[in-house]
């Protein structure tokens, strides 16, 4: 069975790419993922705020209270060198590259242009094979228009593309007024792939303490329907690699997304829950399904049910909505 696919210009031996998660923090875990069949790895994200925050925090606390009182002019020994967030990340890229043979895709998460260009270049120098840009922009400013937000994405993309030679993908949120138009704009500006979608961190309220509870919920298979629809639409209209990144837990999930037109079906929650070996299980199940349904390859499957290739495209759009609502009556 030929499971190979193409994504960001890489020839991947199958579409099950582990997406950005803490699993990539350990070299050993990444090796296990490779052994289990992962065709590439997207690294955990280097967060812009984290870098700013950590640098400022360290500076603040190391200088807080210093040179104020004659007996205690400082409170900490000051090492000559600190390893900073970006350095650590670059070092980790090097370690991963040395340890595994699959493509290593670095991930940058931020909203400003400035320092990112520099980090992107350093990641390339450290050996990253590709770069995933995760522009986590949650607009709360009443004055900010959707156009200015979209422009920010495009600006970041163009700036980064101008600095690096490795392929660059963008991970998007589903909350765009016109996702296809926006996706096209990114494609026109040279994006090498789109990863759909970013699951925003969604806060909860603790009713006893009346405080916002940061909580991370793992995805479930149900959630794949959102990317499924948009992949079906985009894969029909745009010539760009698409990665599906939400709700891939089983072979069935992956196959559905491939049918809709995904080039890779990225996994995170399922691996966190079940461990690296889960990839092997999904791969085996996928082969079994493809065998059973007499497919020759993943390529054959990919996009065979996208917007253009289904008999009733409206099923993906408003009509389906009406039908479902009616069914509930």
């Amino acid at each position, binding site marked *: 069975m030929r499971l190979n696919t193409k994504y960001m210009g890489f020839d991947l031996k199958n579409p099950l790419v582990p997406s950005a998660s803490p699993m990539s923090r350990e070299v050993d875990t990444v090796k296990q993922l490779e052994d289990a069949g992962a065709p590439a790895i997207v690294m955990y994200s280097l967060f812009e705020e984290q870098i700013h925050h950590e640098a400022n925090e360290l500076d603040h606390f190391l200088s807080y209270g210093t*040179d*104020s009182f004659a007996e205690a002019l400082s409170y900490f020994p000051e090492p000559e060198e600190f390893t900073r967030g970006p350095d650590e990340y670059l070092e980790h890229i090097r370690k991963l590259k040395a340890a595994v043979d699959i493509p290593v895709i670095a991930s940058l998460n931020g909203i400003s242009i400035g320092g990112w260009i520099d980090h992107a270049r350093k990641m390339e120098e450290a050996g990253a094979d590709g770069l995933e840009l995760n522009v986590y922009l949650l607009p709360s400013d009443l004055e900010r228009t959707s156009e200015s937000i979209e422009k920010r994405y495009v600006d970041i993309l163009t700036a980064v593309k101008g600095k690096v030679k490795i392929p660059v993908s963008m991970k998007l949120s589903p909350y765009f007024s016109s996702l296809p138009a926006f996706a096209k704009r990114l494609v026109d500006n040279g994006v090498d792939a789109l990863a759909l979608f970013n699951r925003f961190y969604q806060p909860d309220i603790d009713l006893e303490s009346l405080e916002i509870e940061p909580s991370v919920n793992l995805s479930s298979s149900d959630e794949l329907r959102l990317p499924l629809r948009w992949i079906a639409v985009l894969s029909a209209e745009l010539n760009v690699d698409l990665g599906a990144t939400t709700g891939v837990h089983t072979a069935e999930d992956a196959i559905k997304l491939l049918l809709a037109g995904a080039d890779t079906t990225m996994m995170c929650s399922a691996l966190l829950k079940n461990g690296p070996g889960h990839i092997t299980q999904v791969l085996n199940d996928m082969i079994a399904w493809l065998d059973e349904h007499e497919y020759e390859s993943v390529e054959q499957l990919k996009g065979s049910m996208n917007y253009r290739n289904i008999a009733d495209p409206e099923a993906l759009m408003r009509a389906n909505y009406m039908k479902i609502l009616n069914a509930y009556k």
Partner: protein
Amino acid sequence: MPKNMVTIDGNEAAAHVAHKTNEVCAIYPITPSSNMGEWADAWSAVGKKNIWGTVPDVVELQSEGGASGAVHGALQTGALTTTFTASQGLLLMIPNMFKIAGELTSTVFHVSARSVATHALSIFGDHSDVMATRGTGFALLAANSVQEVMDSALIAQAATLEARVPFVHFFDGFRTSHEVMKIEQLDDSVIREMMDDELVFAHRQRGLNPNRPVLRGTAQNPDVFFQSRETINAFYDKTPEIVQRMMDKFAKLTGRAYHLFDYVGAPDAERVVIIMGSGAEAAQETAEYLANAGEKVGVLKVRLYRPFSMDHFIKALPKTVKSIAVLDRTKEAGGPGEPLYLDVVSALMESFASGDLPFEKMPKIIGGRYGLSSKEFTPGMVKSVFDELTKEKSKNHFTVGIQDDVGHTSLDYDPDFSAHEEDVFRGMFYGLGADGTVGANKNSIKIIGEETEFNAQGYFVYDSKKSGSMTVSHLRFGKDPIHSTYLINKANFLACHQFVFLETQDILERAAEGATFLLNAPYGPDEVWNKLPKEIQETIIEKKLNFYTIDALKVAKETGMGVRINTIMQTCFFALSGVLERDEAIAKIKSAIKKTYGSKGDEIVKKNFEAVDHSLANLHKIEPKAANGASRKASVVSDKAPAFVKDVTATMIAGKGDSLPVSKMPIDGTWPTGTTQWEKRNIAAEVPVWDSDICIQCNKCILACPHAVIRAKVYDEELTKDAPDTFKWTKVRGREWQDNEVYSLQVAVEDCTGCEICVDVCPVKDKTNVSRKAINMEPQIPLRETERANWDFFMELPEVDRSRLKHDTVKGSQLLQSLFEFSGACAGCGETPYVKLASQLFGDRMVIANATGCSSIYGGNLPTTPWTKNQDGRGPAWSNSLFEDNAEFGMGFRLTIDKQRAYGLELLQALQADGKVDAQLAEAIMNAEQSDEPGIHEQRERVAQLEKALKKVDDQRAKQLLSISENLVKKSVWIMGGDGWAYDIGYGGLDHVLASGRDVNVLVLDTEVYSNTGGQASKATPLGAVAKFAAAGKPVNKKDLGMMAMSYGNVYVAQVAMGANDAQTVRAFMEAEAYPGPSIIIAYSHCIAHGINMAKGMQQQKLAAETGHWPLYRYNPQLAAEGQNPLKLDSKPPTRHFSEYAYNETRYKMLTKSMPERAKMLMEQAEKIAKNRYDHYSKLANLSPEPEA
């Protein structure tokens, strides 16, 4: 070879040579020498090698006694070994110093000379510590400036190896140890050249070694001890010559020539001042100035003070000398004179008696004291000494620098006399500790010192508070060498970095005519003039100052710098001072920023760059207008203050303490309590404001407030009829109160530090806006006047009747009056809430022994002190003895009380038997039950009745009893201190006192680090935490002090953390005090040295308990007597990972940035330790009590 010029302070200069020339450094932190050990440790931590190519081993001991023992041991086994210390620390080394010298052992101790505590502790400099070592047999070599420190350190090291006489190499604490100077750093090749390897081998060869066994340290008897002692004489005789030879060799290598005694001034001087230490620099500057003007004066600088070479001394004096004044920076009460004076007298007399005196006749010799505890020593004072010698009858045993209106020892001097060159740049900078002024100035000195031909000097003055403290930087730059070892008197550049100082300080007092004045003001260029106090406006006009202003805080905020205005003000300084060309200066500032902040991240560098770039556009020259501002307040204290406070304390608060004469000083170090209430510091930008509508009156904010600025009272509503308009009250909650009673919570906004802990601990949330609590922060200035009136009104309201309150609850205890208030502790301090709680519960009967450390500083550092009295005039009586002896000191209190109580009862019994006192009253007193407050109250009344009666009894026994009858009422003995004391230096004593069974209460304020001296590791420092001397994270876990105390079985032990369980804390204090034997409370105290957001300190305490790091427990031996398990574990099993607590703190987190792999490894161990610790306690708490035997 090009000279390597560096700008460093005296401590770094000494440490540089010490680290290069030793194999072992055994140290213990003490101000002002701590930095020497810290430098050595930091260098060894990064693998810096000595000149023989190996990294010296730097080890922190548990006390200076321990350090000197380790030094002695290392020397005796042949290692090149050194230590760094001062003051009491040096005194603790004396026993070993006698041994080291007696055994003719080569070593150099580097000492930043500091006052020995007498009537008071002082961290500042004089020679009383060094002089106390005169008898040890150590050679004493003085260095007078930062360059000399580096040079003499090497000369001493070279000399000791040949002479076999050990050396104390000393320089003045703070004045030299902390003065930043541009000096030439000795190259390794010079050091190498000075150190003779053959002598090093010989030193090693003398070490104890089982391959060639000897016995050293015998016990000798009358037959041979004396003769043995005389064998060393030849070594001492040769030492001066060896030192001079090393000085000569050094001169050849560096061009800097030194002599055992160096004479400067007129070659034909008739009047000579003899002096050693930094004062010699000021004396030289003055003598040269006067000599240039034709006066026949000179200065003899003493370098090698011991062994004292009479021969060299006599030869160094000019032949023309007719009169000599010897200046000692020490006081030896009761002696015939101070040490240097006596030595000079005896040298000249001996020479005279033997007919060898090379002068026409015996000179007149007078001696005097100057500069005790870093008292300024200025050219005006030096001149007054020279002037005194011109008098026919010169004053002997004089003092200079103070006004002695009692013994009339002092010389008058002209404070405005100036001896230094006018072309020296003299800049003064007033800043807040928190605004980074000192750091920026150190940076500026480095830039100017290292990038220009100028000589540079910086000296920094800090105030005595740990929060909201003012710093004054004194910077000099000039073409010629700078000998001005005193503060700037006439500044030609003055910068005030905080507008508020204009209100309280005479900022422009030292401005020279035509000086530049740079002011950071929160006002635009058009309005700033009108906002200035009238006195400032007048001075600007009068002295024709060039006045510039900038709103630096605005620039700081815009560029992401927060409150740190350092870079901005530094840029303005360079732009205005003209020391460097403007663009060049800016380029250099930026390169300095890169050097300073580069390791912390590009972000930090970037925002500092931006601050530099935005500064000059916001700098404005202001042309003076008419002096139309409001006048400053005449007095710094309220009219209601007691006479002593108005007279003495207020002068000190205003920064004019130097002007107070001897007659104003208490004679024996005894000062009145309750003086912080008069020092209204107004340091908080925002203060808490009470929302009476939603408050549930839990009083947690009062408990947690580190500065006792939040108080509550319950009182008759009738009393509110005279309340100021904005005074708030509400119906009191709780069934124990009457219907007519109301509750008020009041904040002392002028005393608040703005730490926000109160807001953090408030459990209430506004139902319509959960970000609001029952206490919220609001800007202070608009509230200042009204809240001052409200506070005054509140304080006039009666205190709640103590008998109506449940003392063992948070709510009840916090309505008790605090007898510890408005201390100088850090904003958000984790220690003071415990101290305050104790004062609320037991303050009216407390006597406190306080170990040296943070608590003795915020508890007893002048000008004002926080321990206070209640309406009856009762309150804690407090004293600080030393660092190491605190437990024993407190036990001494107990011994007096117990003895005098017993004696009192004996007398009472005897008087009762003879019918001289009321039998029933005597009986009641003798059998009084005083285990709780009502019992104590009743006994107090009975004893008052007895005292009244005794006054009428004509019997000597009655008089005796009257003098001690106060001890018939229970007193509560408290022994307080930090972990440095309890775990390290004082542990032996603490252990002994706990084992004594005596009724003392020990409060250990455990910050897990030496906080007061700036974050050195103690045995309380946990595994994985970074501290000085544990830069790689402490590899071993903290000592379990509580477990050790429990092992006695009869000691009450509690481990508490107020932020984790405040009710348990209050209960533990009550139980500990009630327990009729030794008690110890180990209190988790978050600290600025943890690198945390201090507003969240109580949350960290909670996490410490929830992760198992700090299990809460109480071990009460009385429960064992009742057949129960004495250990009650008050914490639940850990619910969170240790890392969740630890990584909120810089002390743990920074290791992940400096040594990530090691951080990970240590964190794994720490996780296990936290879990195991809880499990261990849990098992013990669940053991069945032992069946009775």
